[in-house]
């Protein structure tokens, strides 16, 4: 029977965190874990009555967009700044859970859960997102890819909270794409997911590309070799993508779990790369850099 505290200010929240209490954001991971007795916190610190705007706001700071950790997935999907600058993030959040889960769950909660299947994570990796961690003695920033250290493990110090997420605007990428493979469309945990950003030359050859993979390894996986292979490939040239698909199947070492075996994941990873090839398929979502 945990006690529940409802701090009103950031200072109160940081004091409570320094005492080692557990944060309750949307509760969509926390309550499921408590029900399964994976964790049994003594005290929950609920964020709902906080007056601090930082945790709940999406702000344009010039070169970056800053997102409060307690912003829900639904609010992000509806946000014009996120829609304009990070279509890849919107596409991913659109597949997360269900309408109800998206109304409750927060970006900060998804990051802190640090699941290899966390749907916000591959987009945040390709977008070079940074996390801002706040404690009583100030705050610090680090890249998300350094922050997440393993399944469910992060570099958060016990007295800190995840305060905000900073994402640089990406004018140099023309195409944003996210695809998730699961057993069904909603309420399914990814068997594999891929986020991609692609920059094109005037004659539609790939001049810049970022890929990140969910549910492939213990944390989000990247694939620098495959990215290199894709450079210079014309978007409508299947042959180039077939080579890249072969490359990714060699490059990755997928996990095997209840949802799928490693060989299946390797095969599907290649197929997701093939899907990037334009041509018969529907066009990929335009990024803000598109002309």
């Amino acid at each position, binding site marked *: 029977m945990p006690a529940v505290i409802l701090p009103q200010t950031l200072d109160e929240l940081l004091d409570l965190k320094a005492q080692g209490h557990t944060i309750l954001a949307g509760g969509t991971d926390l309550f499921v874990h408590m029900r399964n007795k994976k964790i049994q916190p003594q005290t929950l610190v609920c964020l*709902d009555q906080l007056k601090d705007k930082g945790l709940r706001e999406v702000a344009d700071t010039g070169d970056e967009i800053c997102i409060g950790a307690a912003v829900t997935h639904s609010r992000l999907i509806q946000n014009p700044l996120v829609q304009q600058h990070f279509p890849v993030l919107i596409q991913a959040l659109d597949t997360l859970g*269900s309408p109800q889960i998206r*109304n409750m769950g927060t970006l900060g909660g998804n990051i802190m859960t640090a699941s290899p299947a966390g749907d916000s994570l591959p987009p945040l990796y390709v977008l070079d997102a940074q996390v801002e961690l706040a404690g009583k003695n100030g705050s610090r920033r680090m890249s998300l890819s350094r922050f997440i250290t393993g399944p469910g493990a992060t570099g958060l110090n016990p007295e800190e909270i995840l305060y905000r997420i900073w994402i640089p605007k990406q004018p140099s990428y023309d195409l944003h794409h996210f695809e998730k493979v699961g057993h069904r469309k909603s309420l399914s945990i990814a068997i594999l997911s891929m986020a991609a950003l692609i920059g094109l030359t005037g004659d539609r050859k790939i001049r810049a590309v970022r890929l990140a993979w969910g549910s492939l390894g213990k944390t989000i996986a990247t694939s620098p070799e495959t990215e290199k292979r894709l450079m210079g490939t014309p978007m409508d040239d299947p042959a180039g993508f077939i080579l890249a698909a072969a490359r990714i199947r060699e490059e990755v070492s997928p996990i095997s779990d209840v949802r799928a075996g490693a060989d299946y994941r390797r095969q599907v990873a290649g197929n997701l790369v093939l899907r990037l090839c334009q041509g018969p398929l529907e066009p990929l979502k335009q990024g803000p850099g598109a002309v």
Partner: protein
Amino acid sequence: MKLSFTLNHNALTLETEPDRRVIDLLREDLGLTGTKEACGEGECGACTIRVNKELRLACLMIAAQIEGCSIETIEGLAGPDQALHPVQEAFVQAGAVQCGFCTPGMVMAVTDLLEAIPDPDETQIRKALSGNLCRCTGYQKIMDAAQLAAKKENKCLP
């Protein structure tokens, strides 16, 4: 804790444990058994309610989280004379109710959808119902009910 919130448009203050699950508060403490619990962990949507006009799951919320909020449950949909809400009527007419366990959650989700999008297409309906499972109907009659409800509600528009 002393908890104050609005329940189906009536202001309410009561004494409860802050970690009381909202589903238990509604069903056991307040006798509102329309909201159902099936999975208890967010997967099925049977416990769908609205909190400040957003669909949420009463099985994954605790009392402290609804302090100051406006809560709507299936019991709040009927008119003052207990006449069924148009969405409820549509479910009856379309034969979209079998065992009925998913129905309150489905009706809440359709009501929420029609408030945002009065004339939804099939894809929009499917997406809006994607957090609600039904073990009986095979969903087609529920789709029919949603479409029928949209027609009914639109007729009411001036």
